[in-house]
């Protein structure tokens, strides 16, 4: 159990066994900010930072390189690593998943003005995820997802911007006649469609004649 010392009012108190120290903590004689020490610790630490004296299990991770000689490691709080320990494979960063989901949405809405509304979060999440994954020490999957989400976000936004730019340009150029222009285009488009169907029919006829 070891013998504990604490500092109060410039005075060193102790040694106490752990039970006594806990009593004093509970009664308020020792505050979380008071420094405590026992043999095995590299230096005096505030009570709140000593893992084995903390009464709750949500322990603060050891600060700045000082490793308390404590039998209790702080519970892993990174959710990605928690999931990994369940499945045995590196879990995936949520940001990366979000990035690809937004990216797919951006692609699907890319000709409409909505494309950039999804594209921007796709790009943002993608970059954030890439940075985060590169910075984490524990292996976390999702780099490919984030990259794909990035790319889709850029493509979707680009297409969307082209569309917006075109509409704005045409609006400016024709000064309100845009509806007519669009109607013309729709007519051309259905003519194209008919031409395609016509050539398809011709292909089918040729196929039948060949038999």
């Amino acid at each position, binding site marked *: 159990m070891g013998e504990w010392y604490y500092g109060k009012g410039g005075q060193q108190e102790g040694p106490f066994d752990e039970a006594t120290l806990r009593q004093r903590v509970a009664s308020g004689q020792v505050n979380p900010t008071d420094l405590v020490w026992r043999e095995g610790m590299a230096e005096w630490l505030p009570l709140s930072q000593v893992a084995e004296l903390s009464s709750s299990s949500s322990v603060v991770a050891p600060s700045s390189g000082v490793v308390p000689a404590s039998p209790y490691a702080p519970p892993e709080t990174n*959710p990605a690593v*928690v999931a990994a320990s369940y*499945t045995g494979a590196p879990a995936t960063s949520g940001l990366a998943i979000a990035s690809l989901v937004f990216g797919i949405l951006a692609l699907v809405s890319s*000709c409409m003005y909505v494309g950039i509304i999804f594209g921007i979060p796709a790009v943002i999440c993608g970059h954030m995820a890439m940075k985060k994954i590169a910075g984490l020490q524990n292996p976390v999957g999702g780099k490919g997802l984030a990259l794909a989400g990035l790319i889709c976000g850029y493509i979707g936004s680009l297409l969307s911007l082209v569309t917006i730019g075109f509409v704005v340009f045409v609006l400016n150029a024709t000064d309100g006649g845009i*509806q007519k222009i669009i109607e013309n285009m729709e007519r051309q488009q259905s003519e194209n469609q008919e031409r395609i169907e016509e050539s398809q029919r011709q292909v089918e006829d040729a196929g039948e004649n060949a038999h």
Partner: protein
Amino acid sequence: MLTEDKPGWPRFVLVVPLTILLLVVFRFIYPSLAGSMPSCPLLSLTGFQCPGCGGTRAADALVHFRWIDALGNHAWFVLVILIGLPLIFWMALKEKYSTFPGPRFHQNWLWFCLVSLIIFAVLRSMESFQWLAPDPIKSEN
């Protein structure tokens, strides 16, 4: 994708009710919007079908339960909604009740969505697969 120590509903389950809500809202809003929205300039000008082409028409057919029309306009979108939403809900159930059978969420599901979308979009622009393409826009809705 557990976000807490004890299993509960994972947050991604929210996608399901949110999407359904969006579809319901779309059903009521779209008829009034349809007349005033300009049609796709990209398509009309270049004939180029973006991956989402026909999505709005498909969604309109979908919320009115015209399944064939919906599939004919944007099969990928319709299938993702019809198959994906229950699948997501199932995976969420599995996260909460770990004895549930069936697939876990895995990033390969997302890859599959992306790749199938790209293949779908490319196929659609080829003449032999025109049945995948959206129906032409009529000038009166």
